[in-house]
């Protein structure tokens, strides 16, 4: 027993001389000199955006595919099960987002198997936007021939009319936060090979996704793209009456431009864009103050719900028959009110 006591005493004396042991990290010993750097780093902004992507029950296959495309485009998203769309879906959605520890949400709500509404919300304290989604083309369309790395950070381009009005500004900020992949996200890749286009035309936000590469950049589908270009050049894709194919033509045109740059190697190289998809068009309906609810901050004054449009069409069709019946009765009344004079030559040939 006596021996042990001695040892303890000895230990108590020593610590004054030994320098404090540096903290251990995964990569080795943390140096003291580095510590202040880390502190400044923590002050530096770090984007920790996480997007919950989900949809309502009874969604259309086309819209479901669109949702899956979004999942594959946004590496910083979490996909969740379908949600029953009820009157109280706002509360459940908020709960769900919190449960999955996300900071924003894209909720695809399909109604009547026809109309797709997209909720874009910042959680937990808003704002949130409800869009009507039009003109949906998914990535699976064979006409969209591009391809890009999964998880590479997109470049977001906005047309300058996003700065025109307050609600567009707000939408732009939300889109930047939701669609931009956070820097150094663990699923992201360190290259930039695609570009998102957000453009306001006719008060709708149009979304496009293009793959971009320099003309001589070698990539795994090099031969394939050569082929695409060949086809394009030989045929110009024919007389394409419809919108889709026409626009595809544009997406395939080797839109080439020169990058003016001082770099000796990459001097005067050509940039090529090929559309990857998906494409859709967002029509903002309302902007709310909270997430999935709250005070309405903006209401689209031009918006007509698709239900109303369909009702109008139906009424028009119904009107057709009513008009016919009406015309018939009117004619009858007219004939009754002013009868024809008896024809004096009526029985001329009967004798």
């Amino acid at each position, binding site marked *: 027993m006596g021996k042990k006591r001695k040892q303890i005493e000895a230990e108590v004396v020593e610590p004054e001389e030994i320098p404090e042991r540096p903290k251990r990290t995964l990569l080795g010993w943390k140096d003291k000199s580095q510590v202040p750097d880390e502190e400044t780093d923590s002050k530096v*902004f770090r984007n920790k955006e996480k997007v919950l992507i989900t949809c309502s029950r009874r969604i259309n296959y086309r819209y479901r595919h669109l949702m899956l495309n979004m999942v594959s485009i946004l590496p910083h998203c979490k996909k969740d099960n379908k949600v029953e769309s009820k009157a109280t879906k706002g509360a459940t959605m908020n709960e769900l987002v919190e449960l999955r520890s996300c900071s924003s949400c894209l909720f695809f709500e399909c109604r009547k198997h026809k109309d797709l509404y997209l909720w874009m919300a910042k959680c937990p*304290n808003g704002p949130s936007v409800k869009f009507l989604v*039009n*003109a949906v083309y998914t*990535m699976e369309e064979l006409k969209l021939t591009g*391809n890009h790395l999964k*998880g*590479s950070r997109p*470049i*977001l*381009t*906005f*047309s*300058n009319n*996003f700065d025109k009005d*307050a*609600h567009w500004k*707000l939408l732009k*900020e939300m889109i*930047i*936060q939701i669609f931009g992949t956070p*820097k150094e996200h663990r699923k992201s890749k360190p290259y*930039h*090979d695609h*570009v998102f*286009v957000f453009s306001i*035309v*006719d008060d709708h936000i*149009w979304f496009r996704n*293009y793959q*971009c590469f320099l003309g001589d*950049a070698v990539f795994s589908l090099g031969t394939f793209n050569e*082929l*695409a270009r060949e*086809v394009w050049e*030989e*045929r110009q*894709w*024919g*007389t*394409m*009456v419809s*919108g*889709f*194919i026409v*626009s595809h033509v*544009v997406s395939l045109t080797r*839109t080439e431009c020169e990058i003016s740059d001082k*770099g000796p190697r990459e001097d005067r190289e050509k*940039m090529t*864009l090929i559309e*990857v998809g998906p494409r859709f068009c967002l029509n903002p309906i309302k902007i709310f*103050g909270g997430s999935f609810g709250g005070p309405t*901050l*903006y209401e*689209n*004054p*031009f918006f*007509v719900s698709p239900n109303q*449009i369909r009702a109008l069409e139906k009424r028009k069709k119904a009107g057709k028959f009513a008009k016919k019946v009406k015309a018939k009765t009117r004619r009858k009344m007219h004939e009754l009110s002013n009868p024809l004079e008896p024809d004096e030559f009526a029985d001329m040939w009967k004798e």
Partner: protein
Amino acid sequence: MGIFDKEPVMFEEDGEEDRGEEASESESGSEEEEDVKLTEPSKNSIYNRDSLLDKLGDISWPENAGWIHRLSINVNQEQEVDVNDDLTREAAFVMQALEGTKEAFEKLKSMKINCFRPPDYYAEMVKTDSHMEKVKGKLLSEKRKIEEAEERRKARESKKLSKEIQAQKQKERAKQKKEEIESVKKWRKQRQQSGFAVGEKDADMNLPFEDGKTFERSNKKRPGVAPGDRSGGKAKRGVGNPNKQKKREFRNSKFGSGGRKGLKKQNTAETTDDIRSFNGGKVTGNKKRKR
């Protein structure tokens, strides 16, 4: 924009064959794109500018968040884009993307960030290989279709061309012939004028083509052959036993091959009156007939 200006013209060239198919494919899209809008804004819509800007302030990132975090580029949209004109609309989008990427890459380069992946960097892509295989197949079939159409068009054109060439050749030949005849005539005239005697030789010179209608055939299809003759006039010149030969010839001309038979084999008034074949009670003739 030069590229896009040209396009509408180029589309008209070819591809009538594909129109039906393309139209059917596009239906789903055009149907969705129709969009009704109120002509004038509804009066009681809400627009709370201040709180919108408030919210914007709330959610926006701090000032020190650099451009590298947002990677957003504003692009000037020069002119108003007509929504319903698909081509110009898409062209505008492409131009926006193009200018945006140019600017972004310049910025990235100035930050010394490598933005293009090296050629040996393989990683998961958004579209799977099997999907891209499908896309490739589609493009290939498209290409094949184009080639076939091209071939068909070429064949058609060459056919047309060959016809033309043939016609021209014939014309040329006729012309040459005419010229030759003319030259001969000329030569003859010259000879006459230069004082050659119109004598014994000149009779020989009375060539058949001199009367203008030179190598025309006679109007009869078979000159020198009787209309009912099937042997083409060969029956007339016979050798051997004259009596037998004659009969044979006659029969040949009557029943032999060629020409119309119908009227020849029917009885006429003359043949019924002809009783040469009746030889008083001796039974000959048709052996097939039963007794």
